[in-house]
């Protein structure tokens, strides 16, 4: 929700004021639970310089948001179901790993079939994907 931009406080407060239903994501978790980034980063040692930069940006966001907003950011669930749709950040099992662009039906079914919804929407990978379907 609020890491890496100029206005983390304004974003979180606006979402709260609107009363939007949200799901938690990995960059939210690394703000209210910093060790989450370390746990993920240890699996990609060659990318440590990037993670060091991400860690510094997250520390600034964390300090700007303050304890009360960080506590609120820990509350959203991993899954929101609305009608026939389930919304997740990466998957219902992980905030940090999701199918990359161009996944096959088998991978989508394996990751999102567990949700048992006609429509599943996820984010995490930054890239749009429309209308991919699985059996």
């Amino acid at each position, binding site marked *: 929700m609020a890491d890496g931009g100029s206005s983390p406080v304004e974003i979180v407060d606006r979402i709260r004021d609107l009363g939007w239903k949200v799901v938690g994501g990995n960059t939210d978790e690394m703000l209210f639970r910093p060790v989450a980034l370390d746990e993920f980063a240890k699996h990609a040692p060659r990318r440590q310089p990037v993670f060091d930069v991400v860690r510094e940006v997250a520390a600034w966001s964390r300090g700007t948001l303050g304890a009360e907003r960080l506590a609120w950011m820990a509350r959203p669930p991993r899954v929101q179901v609305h009608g026939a*749709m389930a919304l997740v950040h990466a998957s219902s099992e992980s905030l940090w790993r999701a199918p990359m662009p161009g996944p096959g039906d088998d991978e989508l079914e394996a990751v999102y079939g567990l949700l048992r919804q006609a429509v599943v929407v996820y984010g995490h990978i930054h890239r749009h994907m429309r209308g991919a379907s699985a059996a």
Partner: protein
Amino acid sequence: MIVANTGSVGLSYDGDQRAAYLLLDDWAPAVRRVVYDVDREIMALRSCGPPHAEWVGRMVESGCVQAP
């Protein structure tokens, strides 16, 4: 099952610097892009003091992943 990805609102990594969201109309997904003042956001990044603001600003401006 239909699976769609929202993409990122501000860092779509597709070379398009416009903001983005996913609209479900009768459960049919459609990506919508919205022009916003990218220069203003980059100026805000530079003035509000986060570390590595230039790096984030390059990604916002280019709409692509950039090395720190």
